[in-house]
């Protein structure tokens, strides 16, 4: 476990109040807490929309999905829209396998995520 690379999550904010999270790397058991933390920071009371850009995520396991479900829950509680974008084929398959693709708003790219 010595050489695990910690998950990097880039956070950016637009002038319109959209917060975009862009994690890079596989998201499994060890990386999910970092994403969870970033999600909590994104829904900071000022965000008008939260976008999670998964284009830098080659693979995601269930703990990663769980972090996204938690994001969805906060989004519903706070009434701040959550949009996912940039899913690779493999990551999309994980959503489909877990039968979670229909509960999220998923769009192709960050541009579309701003206007959905």
């Amino acid at each position, binding site marked *: 476990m010595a050489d695990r690379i910690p998950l990097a999550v880039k956070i950016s904010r637009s002038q319109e109040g959209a917060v975009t999270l862009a994690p890079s790397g596989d998201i499994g058991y060890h990386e999910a807490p970092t994403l969870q933390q970033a999600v909590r920071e994104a829904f900071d009371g000022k965000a008008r929309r939260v976008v999670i850009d998964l284009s830098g995520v080659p693979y995601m396991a269930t703990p990663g999905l769980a972090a996204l479900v938690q994001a969805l829950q906060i989004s*519903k*509680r706070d009434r701040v829209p959550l949009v996912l974008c940039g899913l690779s084929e493999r990551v999309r398959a994980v959503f489909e*396998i877990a039968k979670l693709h229909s509960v999220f708003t998923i769009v192709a790219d960050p541009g579309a995520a701003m206007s959905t």
Partner: protein
Amino acid sequence: MSDTPDLRIDLVSNPCYLCAVREFMVGVTRALGFPETPGSQVALAVDEALTNIMKHGYERRLDGPISVRVYPLAQTDTQVGIRIVIEDEARQVDPAAIRGRDLADIRPGGLGVHIIRETMDEAVYERREARGMRLTLVKRVAPGVRNNCCCEG
């Protein structure tokens, strides 16, 4: 239930072995003619079920016995299927207490039971006779195009 399964895995409750069992289940569903996605769903459901037994049943003890028995269902031109029976000797809980979390419920973690119930056709928890729990999973699908029984020939 007393017939011999085609395959049976006995393992200790060590999460290190979860991946191996998942890969095994992917291979087994492929052998039985499942297409990729439902095969992965079976593997994921078994993975989540074993994770829960290790976490909740054995409370992270690493040496609790778990068995996974695999019964192929009778195959037809339009349907393939699998029945999986998972047994442990861990603490017994009320089957009604094992519920998938409502996705609107804001707590971290836990998707396992939700995924198991959503992806399988049947998922039945029972108390075993003496001790431990039993989970029976059933999944039936239309066969994949390439219904041969090998990974790479």
